């Protein structure tokens, strides 16, 4: 990053500093080019709000979610044990994740395995920053009056009952929020969960993300807001498949806020 350096936890501890919160980036956020842009938006928001945070960098490893949901409990628990050893070694207490799958696993499945932390999804964290007055969108924010629809990630919504935080954040944009006919509890999956992201779909008559894109097109939005890097990929593909990429942007909530708050001076 050009304007500031994201600190790793190891560096911070070496300097005798302890961050307030650990930003758990996740695999997509670390390696996938599109998802890295979301990661950077989250980092910029944290930096801008002067939240003392750090990442694990190379010490982070897959939470094990796709392995677990594909049936490989051994691999999952090996990953969990390794991650928990690192997190406990650094005495981490608060975690913000950029991915609802990481969020769900660390929050709900790690405690029984010895890793208990206060875990937040980035949309929850951003909502609190806005609520505390630490983060404000700029006056001429580019999303004012635009039509935005939010696609609920299964593991934030149904999985953890969080439907309000992403919508609260979006409402700060002064945009026109529209709901798809299936939303919140009834939201349709993007098709990536349960390790589907890493394999071909089974035989059928359509792709799940194309089906979900039908719901999107019905409400004619300018932007599809997402809260998960995998949903982001799926919806981007879906919009492309429907040949609507000129009309409809697919962006993570963190990206929308970072742009609206003018945190990307270079673009």
């Amino acid at each position, binding site marked *: *990053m*050009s304007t500031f350096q*994201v600190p*790793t936890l190891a560096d911070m501890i070496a300097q005798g500093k302890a961050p307030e919160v650990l930003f758990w980036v996740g*695999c997509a*956020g*670390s*390696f996938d080019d599109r998802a*890295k842009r979301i*990661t950077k938006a989250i980092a910029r928001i944290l930096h801008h709000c002067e939240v003392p945070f750090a990442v*694990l960098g*190379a010490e*982070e*490893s*897959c939470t*094990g979610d*796709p*392995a*677990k*949901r*594909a*049936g*490989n*409990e051994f*691999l999952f*628990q*090996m*990953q969990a*044990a390794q991650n928990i050893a690192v997190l406990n070694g650094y005495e981490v207490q608060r975690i913000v994740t950029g991915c609802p799958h990481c969020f*769900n696993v660390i929050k*709900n*499945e790690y405690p*029984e*395995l010895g890793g208990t932390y206060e875990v937040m999804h980035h949309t929850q964290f951003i909502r609190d920053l806005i609520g505390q007055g630490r983060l404000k969108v700029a006056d001429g924010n580019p999303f004012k009056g635009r039509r935005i629809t939010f696609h609920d990630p*299964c*593991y934030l919504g*149904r*999985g*953890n009952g969080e439907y309000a935080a992403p919508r609260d954040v979006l409402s700060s944009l002064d945009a026109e929020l529209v709901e798809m006919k299936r939303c919140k509890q*009834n939201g*349709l*999956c993007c*098709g990536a*969960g*349960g*390790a*589907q992201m*890493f*394999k*071909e*779909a*089974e*035989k*059928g008559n*359509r*792709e*799940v993300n194309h*089906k*979900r894109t039908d719901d999107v097109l019905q409400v004619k939005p300018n932007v599809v807001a997402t809260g998960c890097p995998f949903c982001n990929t799926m919806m981007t593909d879906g919009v492309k498949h429907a040949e609507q990429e000129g009309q409809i942007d697919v962006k993570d909530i963190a990206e929308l806020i970072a742009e609206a708050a003018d945190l990307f001076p*270079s673009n």
Partner: protein
Amino acid sequence: MIAQLIFAACVVAGATLFARRIRFIRKNILMGQRVDRFDRPIDRWKVMARVALGQGKMVARPVAGIMHILIYVGFVVINIELLEILIDGLFGTHRAFAGLGGLYDFLIATFEVLAALVLLACVVFFVRRNGMAIARFRSQEMGGWPTLDANLILVAEVFLMFAFLSMNAADVIAQGRGIDHYIVAGSFPVSQFLVPLYEGLTDAGVVAVERGMWWFHILGILSFLVYVTYSKHFHILLAFPNTYYSDLTQQGAMDNMAAVKKEVDLMMDPNADPYAAPAPEADAVPAKFGAKDATDLSWKQLMEAYTCTECGRCTSECPANQTGKLLSPRKIMMDLRDRIEEIGKQRDASGGTWNGDGKALLGSYISEEELWACTSCQACVQACPVNISPMGIVLDMRRSLIMEDSKSPESITSMFNNIENNGAPWAFPAASRGDWIQES
């Protein structure tokens, strides 16, 4: 006197058959694996009150939901009448509760109105099922028995309610004519309209209709009691325990397997003594990872199979099913029920122990293709009005595929390898995980 004896014999026969089925099903359910669902009783009562008693998840589909509430309330309230029928039948009385006076009039009037509403609801359900193109009633797994089962019960309900009302209509006539035995009691807001049907009959004819309908009604209810245990209509009983024993953890959470934790702990702990004697209870049953057959699932999951109403809300919300994949969460539940019934019968035929039959739920009933189509989106769990988790069963069977049989699509195998070697599902070196920090 003879009538009383015949009546008593019928009641005993019905109750015996019912009790036998209940014992059989209980034994089947208890073939499942242990899972602790006995904590937090207050929360459990609350869930049961909301979801089963209060029908909390039913009205998500307003037409079906409201019609069902009519049937449900009607059934519960009308069965108060059953008490009177039992007493009349056993002691040869007629309308034993008539002494309640005004309250009795009120009760009978309520039963009548509810009976009419139940009748209406059943007709609507029947038309919805058979006359309208509602997708969730038409999937593949609904062919043959499941559809017949659904229709049988609706037609039976219509006949039962009609018999109940006819009985009252004949009673009204008998009361009016002052026929011996027919005391003046009750208020009949609905059945008065059926009076013209039977008015032309002689006194003997009226009595025959009244008695005939009375017998039809009680024998119908006794048969229903037994029939229910063979059918999706068993939910009228099991909906209550099934919601009481709901999974109270966060819906997104998947259980951590204790057997795996033990092994991982050993591997991670350099001081652990590999030759230490394992705890005796851990050794009692050889650990099997995941579910290959019905008996590898938990007792709660087997109870869910008996509770399933075959309503198909899960399947109609399932993204895999909506896009033409083979997976249908309702079929998973129906297959599981068929399989555990089959196992139970074999167990009883071979003197109480089951030694396998070369078949298994996974393979003989449910294919790998179905399992791999699940996105673990929990839409089925969310939609189920009786808190069943078809997803839990799908994921437990994946565990068996992977950990027992090492069977997975090639791309899944490489995802596993990547996580194991690089700490990510893709083939990027672990050391480059933080590289994004340096990129602008």
